[in-house]
């Protein structure tokens, strides 16, 4: 039921180290917001400020319409799930989940009902009387989530909750979280991760943090399809989007860019006369490339192929200063190594960037 509103929020450590500034964000009730960004960009810090574990040094944070800058964590109606689970190691699963309610002096039957319900929801009932150390990683993670659920908060905060799990468990737990969200459509969730897949699959909106501020906010597919900067473009998607420098040689509803190595790319991005001759970077996602016999966007020698079964990665020899170009082709491609290959791309999947960042959508 809780909306969150961050207005010009900033964080400065020890008076000098500015970690975040001018963060403005409106979160509607029931959203699942994912924070992503490079390591050290302040994701955890922001989350912890929302939780009340870090003092907000600038701006205001409202939860449910009330400024909570000075409200202690317990009174903010939030629950947090830590990367390390932070289970109380000396308490059983049941006690771990009941702790917050006991502190709040809830009655015994009330506590029991809440715990049982959460345990059932997370399939933890058989483990209620175990100590955390007797649980597997995934189970522990579920306990941590259960502990949050029991408190019935209006906002859930997750800080990289899956990063300690191994690949298979991560997939399974991720799906559980998605289902959980569905069971509680009116609860707001904020989720920090640096895992692409998690961000893409879970988020109703993704907040990309970079360089002390917000780089872009949008739905996963928005960010994937319409990144508003080279940074976001390269950050979302794996392997990262290839950038090839070029110059605009034809404008209109579609834009033609002539590339440095002679190839040319046609993009659905519209442009105006004024853009003519502009130096731009052409962004091509590896998975959007196809081998073509005719004219293509990019031509290079394959330095290495990596066959992943369903897809094959082609690594091209870097040319001069340019970063390596990678293409991801469906299926299995043998014997491409050392061969010269030309790649083409759908015009509606060709991105254009100007000046190290801003997208050329108008």
């Amino acid at each position: 039921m809780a909306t969150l509103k961050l207005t010009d929020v900033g964080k400065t450590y020890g008076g000098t180290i500015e970690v975040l500034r001018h963060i403005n964000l409106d979160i509607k009730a029931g959203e699942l917001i994912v924070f992503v960004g490079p390591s050290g960009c302040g994701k955890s810090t922001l989350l912890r400020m929302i939780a009340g574990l870090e003092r907000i040094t600038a701006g205001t944070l409202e939860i449910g319409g009330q400024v909570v800058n000075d409200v202690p964590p317990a009174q903010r109606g939030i629950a947090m799930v830590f990367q390390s689970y932070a289970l109380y190691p000396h308490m059983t699963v049941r006690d771990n989940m009941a702790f917050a309610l006991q502190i709040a002096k809830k009655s015994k039957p009330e506590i029991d009902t809440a715990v049982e319900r959460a345990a059932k929801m997370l399939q933890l009932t058989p483990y209620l009387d175990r100590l955390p150390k007797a649980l597997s990683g995934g189970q522990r993670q579920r306990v941590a989530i259960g502990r949050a659920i029991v408190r019935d908060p209006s906002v859930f905060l997750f800080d990289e909750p899956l990063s300690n799990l191994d690949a298979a468990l991560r997939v399974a737990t991720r799906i559980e979280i998605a289902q959980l969200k569905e069971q509680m459509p009116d609860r707001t969730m904020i989720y920090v991760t640096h895992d692409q897949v998690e961000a893409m699959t879970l988020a109703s909106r993704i907040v990309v943090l970079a360089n002390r501020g917000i780089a872009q906010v949008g739905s996963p597919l928005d960010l994937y399809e319409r990144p508003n900067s080279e940074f976001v473009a390269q950050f979302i998607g794996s392997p990262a989007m290839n950038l090839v420098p070029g110059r605009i040689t034809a404008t209109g509803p579609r834009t033609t860019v002539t590339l440095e190595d002679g190839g040319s790319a046609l993009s659905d991005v519209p442009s105006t006369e004024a853009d003519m001759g502009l130096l731009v970077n052409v962004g091509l996602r590896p998975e959007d490339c196809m081998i073509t016999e005719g004219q293509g966007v990019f031509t290079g020698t394959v330095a290495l192929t990596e066959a992943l079964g369903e897809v094959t990665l082609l690594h091209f020899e870097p040319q001069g200063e340019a970063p390596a170009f990678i293409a991801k082709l469906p299926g299995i491609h043998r014997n491409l190594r050392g061969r010269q290959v030309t790649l083409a791309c759908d015009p509606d999947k060709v991105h254009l960037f100007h000046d190290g960042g801003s997208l050329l959508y108008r």
Partner: protein
Amino acid sequence: MHPAVQAVLTIVIGLGACIGYFWASNQLLDRVIFPARGANIARNIRRASMIRPWLFLFPAMFALGLYLAWPVLATLWLSLTDRDQGGAFVGLANYAQMSQDPKFWEAIRNNLLWLVVVPAASTAFGLLAAQLTDRIGWGNIAKSLIFMPMAISFVGASVIWKLVYDFRPVGQEQIGILNAIWTGLGGEPQTWLTMAPWNSFFLMAVLIWIQTGFAMVILSAALRGIPEETVEAAIVDGASPLQIFFRIKVPQIRSTIVVVWTTITLVVLKIFDIVLAMTNGQWETQVLANYMYDKMFRAFDWGVGSAAAMVIMLLVLPILVWNVVNVRRETR
């Protein structure tokens, strides 16, 4: 009242009072003075959390202040006054007098020797014991036995070692094992505790004997903390066991070695019982703590005794500074 009942009762009351303080004072703060409700909730909570550390610290600070800091200050004051002149302030006269005393310099010399030898030897033996016992099946038993002297009081230890160093004149059967071995090897029986300057080392042996267990326990924990892979990597690299120990393991637990060293140093600075019981500082074995005791309770010279105490405190200064630096770094 039966003494046992009395004992239990006193224990219960003592503990109850202690727990009661913490509970009641926190309740008072949270419920009465700065209740976490109402209009001023945020302000109240912030204020309460500014006061609470001192609530937690108060009993400890009070006890430390009263039982250690205040006597230290009083001693500092005593060291600057003369009781025979009715407690008149005499400046550094006591220190000057002390510096005239060859026994004081002997104590300083010995103390420095102790400060080097005991921590070094305890750490070295502890390291050796830790390394060796970690690699054998009955290592834990061995560890327990080596640690055992820690459980023995200094007085008990002195008794034990007096028996070791016992001396009988030539012709009598030796009952001290050291002399028994020595004469068995063809030597003349020796009065170990009077052979300056070696006797100091025989006293140090007692403390080393006690402290090695401590060093061993901690260092063995540290050794176990060394990533097994680095050792395996060294094996693959062709290093011999000795090379592995000195070039791979020891450098990796350097910080623990420093901690052990420091802790033992603190013990050495206070060492008194062993010297008192075994030689009372005679035969050039005087140490500062015993010198202080001597001056205070035998010679009734409070001025010089206090001055000696101050010198002991002074010797710990480097360790103090090191710790401040450490904590500062840690909290940043």
